Structures are given as C-alpha cells and as structure tokens.
C-alpha cells in the first residue's frame, strides 16, 4: 500500500515537473509552430469523427429521456434547454476528453514509451535537446488549441441529435424551431464558457498524463502496453474526478 501511494505521488510530482519544464521552453514556441500544427491536426482528425457520433447519440438520448419524463408535466418546451445545457456544461467536454484519452492519449503514450524503451529519449538527452521541448510542449499547446473547437462542434452535433429526436419521435413532437428557441432563450454564455474551460483543463490533463506515462516507462516492449493502459485509465479517472471539482468551483 505504501509503495502504491509512493508511486502515485511520484507520478503526480513528475507530471507537474514535466509541465513546468515544457512551459519553461515556451519562449521557443515559435520554433515549433509546425509541430504544434501537426499535432493539432492529428488530435483533431483522430478525435472528431468518434466524438461527433457519440455526441450526436448522447444529445438524441438526452432528448428522448427528458421527453419521456417532461411530457407528463406538459414541459416539453424545456427539452431544448435541458439537452443544450447538459451538452455545453457537462457531456460535450467530458465526451471529447474521453475520446481524446482513448484515441490520441493512448497513441502518444505508446509513441513516447517506445522512444524511451528504444533509447531515443536518451539520444535526445545526449544531444542536449530537452524532450520536454521537442515532444511534450507541442502536444500540450496543440491540445489547448484543438479542445475548444472539438467541444463546440461536439455540442452543436449533440444539440442537432436532440432536435432530430424531438421532431421525429411521435410522443415528443417538438418542432426544431421550438427546440432551438428553448436553447436560445435559456442557455447562458456562462454555460458555454464553463464547458470550454473544462475542455481546456481536461485536454491539458489528458495530454500531460499521456506524455508523462510514456516518458516514465522503464523496461522492455511489454511495459509499452502496460503504459498505454495506465495512461488511458488514469486519464479517464482524472477527467471524471476533475469534472466534479471544476463544476463546483465554477458554480
């Protein structure tokens, strides 16, 4: 138990140190613009298709479930805001972060872990090229740029999924105009910005965990697989726990 706690604290400490070292290279960021663009593009196109499909069905499911309940109270006009606020404040950023951890975080961990195991990181260190600047900073900056875009797209697609269900399911029967009017009337700018703040925090944490787990890998090829699993599980845990605390702080 003591060993496990030590490991967790060591992991946390090394993640903080890694972020610190990466951002210490921030003045050299203009030199890595190409890498930032490459990682941003990769993070975007890897995450967007699955995140879009998931957000669509989550929006649809929210509309369906709320429709089932709200029709008994004659409050179907509120389905729009319920779906809209839930997607913007919670489900949009959380779902995008989960897909980011599964698709991009796992790939980043695997790449960095294999670089560590096959001594490529050692080679960088002997060249006095900090891996934090070359490998970590571009990924962190890229994910900070991409997350708000992905979250907004996810939100819009989720709302769209809810609108389709409201229009097509007979016992709900809310027209798209009324549905979007409800979102427009009741959704506040703060709902959107809170969601975007969450998205930024989640994206940063997922990428930091992915990079840190990869760079801390020791041993042989078998450890690369373990590192990937550890990275994804830790990321999902961190996203869900942080979600509660960020909601509480922003509320």
């Amino acid at each position: 138990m003591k060993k496990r706690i030590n490991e967790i604290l060591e992991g946390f400490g090394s993640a903080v140190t890694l972020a610190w070292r990466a951002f210490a290279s921030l003045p050299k960021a203009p030199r890595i613009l190409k890498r930032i663009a490459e990682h941003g593009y990769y993070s975007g196109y890897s995450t967007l298709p699955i995140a879009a499909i998931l957000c669509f069905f989550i929006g649809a499911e929210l509309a369906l479930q709320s429709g089932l309940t709200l029709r008994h109270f004659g409050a179907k006009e509120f389905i729009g805001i319920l779906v809209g606020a839930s997607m913007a404040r919670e489900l949009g950023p959380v779902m995008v972060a989960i897909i980011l951890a599964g698709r991009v975080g796992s790939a980043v961990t695997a790449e960095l872990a294999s670089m560590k195991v096959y001594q490529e990181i050692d080679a960088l260190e002997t060249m006095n090229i900090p891996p934090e600047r070359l490998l970590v900073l571009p990924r962190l900056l890229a994910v900070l740029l991409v997350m708000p875009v992905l979250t907004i797209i996810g939100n819009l697609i989720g709302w769209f999924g809810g609108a389709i269900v409201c229009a097509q399911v007979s016992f709900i029967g809310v027209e798209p105009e009324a549905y979007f009017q409800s979102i427009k009337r009741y959704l506040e700018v703060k709902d959107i910005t809170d969601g975007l703040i969450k998205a930024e925090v989640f994206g940063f944490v997922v990428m930091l965990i992915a990079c840190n787990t990869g760079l801390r890998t020791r041993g042989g090829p078998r450890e690369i697989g373990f590192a990937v699993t550890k990275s994804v599980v830790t990321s999902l845990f961190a996203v869900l726990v942080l979600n509660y605390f960020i909601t509480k702080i922003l509320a």
Partner: protein
Amino acid sequence: MTAALAKFPKPDLRFMREDRSPAKVEVVALSKSYGPQHVLFDVSFAVAPREIFTIMGPSGSGKSVLLRQIAGLEAPTRGTVTINGLNPCDPVTRDRFALALVFQAGALFNSLTVYENLALYPLERRIHSKPEIRALVMRALQILSIEDAARKLPSELSGGMKKRVAIARALVMEPQLILYDEPTSELDPVMSATIAEIIGTLKEQFTVTTIVVTHDRELALTISDRVAILHEGRIRAIEPPAALRQSADPVIQDFLNPKIDIQHPRFKKLEANHE
C-alpha cells in the same frame, strides 16, 4: 587504415565550429548502485585528448552503466565524471562541450528519415544555416558511404546500416568526444571490421577523443590506444593492447583467450542437468 582514409573525401570544415578540440575525460572513484544492487565500485581512470580508450569486460560487468555515467544520462551514486573539467549531468555546462553517443541499437528516431535523423541536432541547436546543415549531413552520409539511405526510414535499414547511420548522426554533432556502446554487436565479422576501421579513421580525421565499450576482443585490441578491463564492476587493469596480451592476470587471460574445455566442471554440471 591509410587506405580507408584515402577513400574518404576531404571534409569541408569551413563552416564547422572552430572551438572543437578533443575532450579530456576524468572518472574519479565512481560507484553506481540501483537500490540494493551495486553495479560499479570505485572506478577511476582518465582519457587523454584524441585517445581511443576501450572499456572491455564480460556481459553484466557494468560497461554500459559506466558509459551512461560518462554520457551524463545518469548521475553516479558516488564519485565524479568530468569532461574538460565539466559535469556532463549538468544541462548548463553540457552546452560547453560536444558529446555524441552511438547507442548499441542505434537509437535512431523511427518516425524520421535518415536525413532528418542526422539534421535534427543542428536544426534544433540552430548551429548552422539550412544549406550548411544540408552540406554537413550529406558529408557525414558520404563518409559512411550511406548516401543512398538518406530518404529511407530506420525500419528499412539492416543492422549494419543502422550502426553507420548512428555514427553519421554522431559526426554531424561535430563531437569532441564520441562514445560507442557495443558498436560491433550483432554484426557479421566483415561489417565489424568496417565499423572498427571507421572508428579509427574518424579519430584521425576529426580529432576526437573516443571511448568504446565492447566485449569484442578483436575490436578492442585492434583500434585502442589503451584498454580497461572491467570485471564485476571494478577496473581490473588499464593497459595498452600489447601489454594486456602479456598480462599474467588469469581473469584477463581467461577473457582474452577463452578456452572451451568440455571437461570443465560447468559443462559436467550442464550435462548432468540435461540427463
């Protein structure tokens, strides 16, 4: 060696840094432990500028660990390593000398082509302009006779080619000190001889200090100015190859001239286990 020198083109040094002089390495009372496991014990030696110093010993004797301490990849548990009087572990002083390590498996960046692997260091360090970097990389490829591999990925190369690319990458760094970790492991005898020739030639052409870690007896006794025998984490002897051959130390003789004696008790034991 002279023939090898003749076939290499004369390097164009016009844009190379002028402050390059071979490094002096000093290892003083170095010990290294990983938790309860002690790997190196009180290791001391000095390597003079332009010397080819080989650390030889059986597998598990701590050669590669010693090389990692010299390269500054790990800090010693006790004792010191200095290169030109500076600590290789300190990232601030690390910029004051150029050190290149040729890893056993090459440690080439698999996502980059051979050309990009070689150009990474000068591009990142902003030492030269892009045309100069191109000239530097192409010259290194030419010296190692691997120009045709420039556009290939490391995964498309053979073991011998990877070693050559790793050496070429070291050359592009214009090093004052080159460290080689098992440069001839997993290579056929012909390729091993070629790598040995390259190591010797580079020392002549580029005036670098060279430290080689190997258990290849032929390589060590052919190219080295001095050879250190590392046995169970301790330096057993440091001698020129000729003196080492004459050594009366049974451990050194056993390592340099291993005899396969099927009557040896260890073979008897194996036989008994097999039955």
